[in-house]
């Protein structure tokens, strides 16, 4: 048996270091691949006072407004965007122990719910949401274009569940212009909910709006992609 030279031991150490370097490189490369999945930049709710904040969102029938650089098929996907600056709006941050007001401009036509559970407004202050100024507790499931549904992550100590169906625009709605794109006049839906301590939540739309092809395709595409119809909500101080 050859006796171990110091070069031998150095070789082992170098291999181990190099090996972990390769692991780190692969991790970084996977993280940087937006094709595999990405989290858009954080959209922070605007603080409007001590203990209050507002989140301004829009839902569009295509991605020209806030995913303008995408190619096919993503450019035709329905999406949530930020209303204030046409940036991407699916990773939200809201302050803890706050009354959050959410205002959604809903530009998309109805696809219809497959689960009537989501036709009811749940978890908001007063159990209502304002639809173009009218308070309602539920809508017709067939008239839903999207939902705003915030849900608790497993075994969280601060459960929160907010679900509001978003009314679809009628077929004969007049057109408006948003950033050079033409969309139907939106329904404005607003509601409020309270956050507790700092925690993480996920949100998702529950209308099969991802595709016209029917079940289960309606739940794929934008419905399965962060940045479009799914994202995370972080309750944290800022």
């Amino acid at each position, binding site marked *: *048996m*050859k006796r*171990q030279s110091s070069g031998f031991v150095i*070789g*082992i150490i170098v*291999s*181990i270091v*190099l*090996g*972990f370097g*390769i*692991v780190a490189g*692969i*991790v970084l490369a*996977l*993280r940087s*691949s937006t*094709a*595999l*999945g*990405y*989290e858009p930049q954080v959209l922070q709710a605007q603080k409007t006072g001590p203990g209050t904040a507002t989140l301004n969102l829009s839902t569009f029938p295509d991605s020209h407004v806030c995913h303008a650089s995408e190619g*096919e*098929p993503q450019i035709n996907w329905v999406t949530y965007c930020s209303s204030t600056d046409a940036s991407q709006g699916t990773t939200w941050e809201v302050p803890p122990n706050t009354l959050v007001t959410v205002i959604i401009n809903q530009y998309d036509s109805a696809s219809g719910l497959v689960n009537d559970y989501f036709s009811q407004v749940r978890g908001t202050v007063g159990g209502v949401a304002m639809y173009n100024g009218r308070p309602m507790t539920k809508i017709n499931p067939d008239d839903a274009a999207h939902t705003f549904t915030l849900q608790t*992550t*497993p*075994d969280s100590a601060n459960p929160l569940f907010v679900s509001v169906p978003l009314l679809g625009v009628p077929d004969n709605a007049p057109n408006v212009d948003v950033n050079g794109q033409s969309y139907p006049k939106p329904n404005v839906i607003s509601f409020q909910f309270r956050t507790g301590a700092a925690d*993480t939540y996920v949100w998702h739309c529950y209308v099969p709006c*991802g*595709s016209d*092809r*029917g*079940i*289960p*395709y309606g*739940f*794929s*595409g934008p419905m*399965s*992609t*962060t940045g479009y119809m799914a994202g995370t909500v972080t309750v944290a101080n800022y």
Partner: protein
Amino acid sequence: MSETTTTNEAAVIVPRHYTLRQLLFPSVVSGVVLGVVGAVVVYFIVRALQPDNYDAQVVFAYTGWTLFFFAGIGAFNGIWRWGFARHDDTLEEALDLAGKDQGLWRYFRYTTDHKVVGMQYLATVLVLFFVGSMGAFSIRLEQSVPGAIFFTPSTYNTIVGMHGILMIVASIVMVSGPFGNFVLPIMIGARDMAFPRLNALSYWLLFAAIPVFLSTLFLGGFPTGWTGYAPLAVQGLTPGMDAYCFTIILFAISTTVAALNIITTVLVLRTKGMTLARLPIFVWGVMLSVFLGLTAFPSFLISQVMVLTDRVFHTSFFIAANGGSNWLYEHLFWFMGHPEVYVIALPAMAVAAELSAVFSRKTVFGRRMLLGSLITICILSVLVWGHHLYTSGSNTALDAPYMLDTELISIPTGFFFLALVGTLWRGRIWITVPLLFVAGMLVNFVVGGITGIYLADLPTDEILHGGMFVTAHFHFTLVGSMVFGAFAGFYYWFPKMLGRRLNPRLGALHFWLFEIGFLGTFLSLFYAGLQGEPRWSANVSPLYATANLIASLFAILIAVSVFVAVYNVIISLARGEVATADEWGARTLEWTVPTPVPLENFATLPEVKGTAYEYGLSEPVDKGFGLHEPATPDTMDAPSPQAQS
């Protein structure tokens, strides 16, 4: 008849008989170039015809890649010649196809020599394991803390799927590919496999599948994990899923071709005196495994073809809304999925049995019992797939028969343990690195096999299915047992295949780091599974955070063991001790040929008069190391002593 190769040949870069152009065309270089060209051309044609159907564009591009790759590497040359040439292959042409005088280049061409194919498989398996382990370390990194912090959930799902399928593919071929190709024909006293060109085809199909699979990284990944369950597989609107399906199709064809080759070789090309009763256990293990694969993999193939037709042509095999059923997919998949783990297991178990005899210098304890148990496992394993479907809601009336059959497999497995423990008992145990891996395999297989009982039992499966308990169980069996068995074979046959000794201290270090890291990681995951942690968790709930953190810390040891092994291989190839032809004193035929093995293996085919396990039954001799004279290059020209009665 054939020239013995000299040690100089391996070092020649461009052998003088060949120009560079002759070596490059056809070779893997021309194959890849032509394949890429073909893929791009087909892609643009299909895109012009079907601009909205991304799945069609991608799947046809893959088809173009495959066909043009094989044209470029010269796979169709034989068929062309058969159809249009005026004469059959001459001996010179056949030897040329077998890589004679091509030096290292023969590994990069469509070479038919089984030893070349075996080396190609070995290199590919090691690369697949390395890349797959990168996925494993990424998974453990993500699961070390709650929340999807390091990767997005979408990226994580793709990583899990890639880790799974890369490791499954690597495990299926890890013993039958390198050693089933390189060693098996020599072990039965043959000069090559029955179908040398199909042998090359089986390898290059696996090679061609790799770029197809890796393209998923650029096409959005795939969300289903390695099981590829429809309807989730059909649902995705980005084409990353098609890469997975097409890879499986190529892989299933590759294994089918290889299976036919191995079975025919073993049945037809055994040398004189090598009856089926005298066949080494390793050969039995590989042959039973490929019989099983031949039965099972067509089901996998058809399930992926159906997923692709659902995706590309919008059929509805698995879409309930249009009359299909996801249970169809589950049955097709698991009809493959269960025998598949025995395809992985049987060769590794056979390797362990071989090595236990060699390193205890003792005949196998109950050889016929052992072979009977392997055959029983092979037969029973076809009938148990329903245990993956206990909680699927489908055909609950069959749950009881499936449970009966699944639990019955534990009986022949018990005989396997009895045979190996009995072989080691009272042997002269030479603790080498291969034997360490055999011991590790036995320990891990006990845990893996016993935890399988928990999952086979209906009441406990109710609470354990789909949780980390299942993950830990199959890692204990597939990795802790079968990969360990493959590593035992690797350390055992490396000196014969590559002519160098692997450093035993590094080998022992590799083993201990791997075993300790492996036990720590997966015992922690058993605990997490008992607590109820679900599988495929990008976001680990805080309830299981401690167990997952401990598992990830132990996984660091596994990573270190991988890098140590890579270092060992590199320095051994570069500066390792030269190995002797009879490295371990074993008695199977591959140790009677010189190292490096000549092109046609034997100068004269041997005649066999007994089994390879008759240690202690010949007169004990004090003739130095080993009980027979190792054949050296100098004595190859003389008639082999085996030929004399």
